[in-house]
């Protein structure tokens, strides 16, 4: 186990010139010993690159990787003592389930008694005990992935266990079960886990801390609540949540903002540097206001969807589309109605150059 510190950048092409040449833009990041982390982002955002750099399958083109302060940038995965589970199940066809689980230990010349004990424990956790003597090749895809997970978890002394979208091939109902299992294993074994996914639910339920990545940049690192309440970057606002955050161009002025040329005033003590900003508010916080309350603007309802536990309103405001989640208790407005949307709220965030502007003095 170790504290993992990254201070690096990576480009797959030699002599990168523009930001686009980088798979991973210069970043500094630390992963605490024993923490559960998730790297979240769309395909091609650099999360797998980052994972492979941590594991040592890839050497970053610049910068260093440190484990407990020791520079391991050029060390092999084996030297770093890293375990990694891949997107698609990797099993050794000719071996039994038990031999598969024991393989990383046997390669490290762990005493046979300890291997047996360790394999037994992991098999029990992953509910593979019944199949230990079966050949791994004949099992179903999710059983095979369980074996891959097991091989990742079987070593007790690893610096970290890395997961690269390990639940892609698993059935949805089993996904929940396995994710819970991983969480439980994390508590029991106290390993550092880093989990790559593009599924926000997976990331937010699994990890204590989520790193949101976009186009080679780690845009925010924080707990689920931070990502939801104070997205540090418009990408985070847009990517996390379903649907994502609403954004409206606005002009910051003294004591308020201009949206669509109409003044809105802050109720709470907030001061923004004047100039153009983006106003961001989550659909969950976009409520109905009163006309003339100084915080709301009229908008036309263009669509009402009944999602079961809530209504999803789509509204038009000066050429921009806003979404609002309304509780199912009140009757929703109908299409074509004019509603007053309360744009300013304690939850409203402001962005300049896509970065969060802290509005408080």
């Amino acid at each position, binding site marked *: 186990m170790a504290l993992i510190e990254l201070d690096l950048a990576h480009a797959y092409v030699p002599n990168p010139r523009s930001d686009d040449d980088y798979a991973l833009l210069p970043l500094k990041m630390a992963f605490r010993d024993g923490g559960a982390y998730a790297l979240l982002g769309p395909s091609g955002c650099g999360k797998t690159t980052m994972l492979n750099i941590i594991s040592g399958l890839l050497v970053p083109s610049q910068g260093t990787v440190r484990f407990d302060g020791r520079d391991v940038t050029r060390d092999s995965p084996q030297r770093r003592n890293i375990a990694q589970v*891949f997107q698609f199940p*990797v099993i050794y*066809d*000719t071996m039994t389930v038990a031999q598969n689980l024991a*393989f*990383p230990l046997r*390669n490290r010349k762990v005493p046979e008694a300890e291997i047996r004990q360790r394999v037994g424990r992991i098999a029990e956790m992953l509910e593979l005990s019944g199949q230990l*003597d079966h050949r791994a090749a004949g099992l179903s895809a999710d059983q095979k992935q369980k074996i891959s997970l097991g091989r990742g978890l079987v070593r007790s002394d690893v610096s970290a266990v890395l997961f690269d979208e390990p639940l892609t091939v698993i059935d949805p109902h089993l996904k929940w079960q396995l994710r819970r299992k991983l969480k439980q294993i994390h508590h029991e074994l106290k390993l550092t886990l880093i989990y790559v996914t593009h599924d926000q639910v997976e990331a937010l339920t699994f990890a204590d801390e989520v790193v949101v990545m976009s186009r080679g940049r780690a845009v925010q690192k924080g707990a689920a609540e931070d990502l939801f309440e104070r997205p540090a970057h418009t990408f985070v606002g847009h990517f996390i949540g379903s649907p994502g955050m609403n954004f409206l161009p606005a002009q910051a002025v003294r004591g308020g903002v201009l949206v669509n040329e109409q003044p809105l005033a802050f109720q709470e003590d907030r001061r923004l540097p004047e100039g153009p900003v983006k106003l961001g508010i989550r659909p969950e916080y976009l409520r109905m206001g009163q006309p003339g309350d100084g915080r709301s603007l009229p908008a036309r309802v263009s669509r009402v969807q009944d999602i079961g536990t809530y209504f999803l309103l789509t509204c038009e405001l000066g050429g921009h589309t806003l979404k609002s989640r309304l509780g199912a208790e009140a009757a929703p407005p109908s299409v074509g109605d004019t509603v007053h949307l309360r744009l300013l709220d304690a939850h409203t965030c402001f962005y300049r150059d896509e970065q969060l502007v802290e509005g408080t003095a």
Partner: protein
Amino acid sequence: MTNHKPVNQKAWWLVLPVILCVAFSAVLPLMTVVNYSVQDIISPQRRVFVGTEWFVMVMRDTELHLALWRQIQFSLAVLLIEIPLGIALALSMPAAGWRASVVLVIVALSLLIPWNVVGTIWQIFGRSDIGLLGHTLLKLGVDYSYTGNPQHAWWTVLIMDVWHWTPLVALLAYAGLRSIPDAYYQAARIDGASQWAVFRYIQLPKMRGVLMIAVLLRFMDSFMIYTEPFVLTGGGPGNATTFLSQYLTTKAVGQFDLGPAAAFSLIYFFIILLFCFVLYNWMQSLGTSDKEQGHA
């Protein structure tokens, strides 16, 4: 026949072309051979049914026993050399880029040469007066002569076959290797597997399918080898390189003993079928028994 689904009968029309093709290309010629094998045909008008007489005669032929024994030794040697060598070649070939293309073409070169040309190439190559191999060996003090020494002839035919056909095994194994996803190698690095373990537990099992094809192809082809030794040594010196095909041809074409030749053709056919069946089943069972490694 009563059938409540007459629609199904139409399918026969779809299968008919295949049946006709197979009948004319395989079944009828084979039946002709069967026909010859049970009759003594003296002239088109006079033929006598002889039953299994030809079969019995052929089976008791000591010359044939020797040819069969030579053939088995030869095919075994071919498999034992070409399969491991082909795998080793495939493992050392570059995986991608222009080097891979160049190497692939070079490796495949010998497969593009017609069989009789291969024989001719080696005939010249091995001559001690003008051949590179023969002359070099002579200079090294080896009294090499593939036309005079039975041992030398046998080895020359074997090495010629290795030269000619190992690339096929290499290409098949190479295709098998390239189909292994990168994640397997990455996982093996993470698991701390040695190079030998990667070969034993990832590459070899993943190549099983193509290797099975390679073994069967090389077995069948080497068991039927004809052209190259015919051109190189003509079966000699003595009978040292007279393999089954050549023996058969001598019988059928040379001596026009169609009856025994037909009987032997059938036996030959069944021997190949039997060996392939045994090889196939043996390779199928390899690595599929539950506790084959004994330390579960």
